[in-house]
């Protein structure tokens, strides 16, 4: 395997990973505040179409990203009003948001089908961005760097800032947080909006970066992978990053094996049926979850108030 091939493969893996990393990071913050939003798939699709539409109208991909974040956040607000104001069941409402987002994005997207926008690719000069070696560092869309910066930023926010501490307190014990004067509902609105915006940007990665076009249901289930990723990561940002890249690697491995990538150099690996590679992400999820839970509550601690409605006693 040449270094060029390894670098090109890393670029592919990063492309597979970035959208689920973005959406997973948003959902992690939402869940840390004690809200389970299963509507990631719908919010990603809303982000994908809003980002595409904003780019198509303004010819400015940066405004497209803002449009995607707004589309995701706005659709998450529907969910927020229902679960925070009306105390509806979070699981059912989240599923409804997924279905709603899929349908609404298809409706909005009807007039954009068959159109293309310029790809939101690397902003570095082609000498670096298209060089077979240097593209390892410079060959990505700004959204890739954004996702990578957001990981430590989110970790720092949750761990080391006062606002992050409040958010975690709301997620762990909403009544205590309420009793010392914090607005549980307000914090959760903000966390849901952040989750929606990140899912929207993740969705825009599909419609603006990988394949700069709009197609109905183009996220093809990545929202559900992002949701699984948060559990897989045990609600920890560092592990989310590792998990996202691990999933991305396994998705790439399936395609690599199917394309006879092991070929004659590694015939023992090529002899494994491709269905095995296709099943790998799921097998590894089961293995990881088993390992985590066998270590007791140390590794995976879901926020104590996750999924429960907040009903102040007075």
């Amino acid at each position, binding site marked *: 395997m040449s270094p060029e091939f390894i670098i090109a493969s890393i670029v592919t893996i990063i492309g597979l990973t970035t959208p689920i990393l973005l959406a997973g990071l948003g959902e992690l913050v939402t869940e840390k505040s004690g809200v389970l939003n299963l509507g990631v798939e719908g919010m990603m699709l809303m982000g994908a179409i809003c980002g595409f539409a904003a780019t198509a109208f303004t010819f400015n991909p940066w405004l497209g990203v803002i449009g995607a974040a707004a589309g995701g956040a706005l659709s998450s607000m529907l969910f927020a009003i229902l679960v925070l104001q009306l105390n509806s069941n979070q699981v059912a409402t989240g599923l409804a948001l997924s279905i709603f987002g899929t349908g609404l994005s298809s409706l909005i997207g009807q007039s954009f089908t068959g159109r293309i926008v310029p790809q939101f690719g690397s902003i570095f000069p082609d000498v670096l961005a298209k060089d077979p070696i240097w593209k390892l560092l410079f060959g990505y869309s700004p959204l890739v760097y954004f996702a990578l910066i957001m990981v430590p930023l989110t970790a720092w926010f949750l761990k080391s800032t006062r606002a992050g501490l409040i958010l975690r307190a709301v997620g762990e014990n909403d009544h205590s947080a309420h009793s010392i004067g914090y607005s549980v509902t307000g914090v959760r609105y903000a966390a849901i909006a952040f989750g929606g915006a990140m899912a929207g940007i993740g969705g825009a990665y599909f419609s603006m970066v990988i394949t700069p076009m709009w197609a109905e249901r183009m996220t093809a289930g990545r929202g559900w992978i992002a949701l699984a990723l948060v559990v897989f990561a045990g609600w920890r940002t560092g592990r989310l990053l590792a998990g996202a890249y691990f999933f991305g690697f396994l998705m790439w491995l399936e395609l690599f094996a199917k*394309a006879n990538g092991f070929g004659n150099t590694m015939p023992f690996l090529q002899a494994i049926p491709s269905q095995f590679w296709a099943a790998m992400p799921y097998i590894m999820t089961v293995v990881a979850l088993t390992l985590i839970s066998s270590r007791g509550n140390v590794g995976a601690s879901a926020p104590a108030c996750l999924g429960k409605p907040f009903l102040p006693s007075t």
Partner: protein
Amino acid sequence: MTTLNRRSLMKAVGAAATLSLVGTTAHAADKVKIGFIFLGPIGDYGWTWAHNKGREAIDAALGDKVETIYVENVLEDASAIPVIRDLAQQGCKLIFTTSYGFMDQTLTVAAEFPDVKFEHCTGFKRADNVSTYNSKFHEGRAVLGTIAGKMSKSGTLGYLGSYKVPEVVLGVNAFALAAQKQNPAATVKLVLIDSWFDPPKEAAATETLINLGCDIVTTHTDSPGPLQILEQKGLYGFGQGADMSAFAPTAHLTAIEDIWGPYYVARAQALVDGTWTSADTWDGMKEGTVVIAPYNPAIPADVVALADEIKAGYVAGTYDIFTGPIFDQDGVEKVKAGEVMGLEQLATIDWFVKGVESAS
């Protein structure tokens, strides 16, 4: 209103046979309903988009006599059964199920509704009220393979497919055989992604094929995503199901266009006339159901001539890519020199030709 009538009738009569009788009488003055089951979204700009064009052709030609309805995004598993059944219960007299993966589900529902006619696309199981129809896409693939074999510098071609079903296997084989006629050393790397429509996975699979040395990638999945990747990399590919040049003006060499309209209109007309019978139709370039989209100016004139020769051969009925000798991946001779594979063999084919590299 219809539903209400039917419900109250069901309570009163309580017998399904009588119900359908009354139902027919009540609808005698109405238009005949024709239903479509679609695999993907009609906006996929590929397979389903082309089928929907065919449905619109029925509306245009027979809009005063028939009414068409459709369901998009139907999964190719047992969940298709209630969707097909629902169309029959809504009063559809003719139902087109437009993907191979709906085969057994169509037969199941057809047995429950002997008065409803069914048309299953690309399958091989029929009944008195179930026809099959197909298009010889592999004729188009032979044209694409000819162009790819001639234009590829590396001799390594990529083929992005969905599932190992006869339609895809035929496409891969026709493409590989045609490419090898131009470049005997040509190999085809095959990736089957287990989906007809998954733009991110199609894109990643295309990138992987390119990384492994393919300089031309053809797609047998339904989105224009792979072509956009090829456009970004400055490589070439082909459209599937429809002309996709709008998505990749430079990379799009040509495309196989599926033209279903004439067949759909003919079958709808036969239903209206009461002359519909179960049949197995397998049209191709000769009948105009498979059409090659305009060529990209980047294709050299001699390659265009070669491609046109194959096209003309198919239209005249003098050419067949599946003429022996044909060897399988292990080098076993499957078709003897001079023999031509029969339709029955083609419809159930499950082996790849020599030079196709695929996972086990």
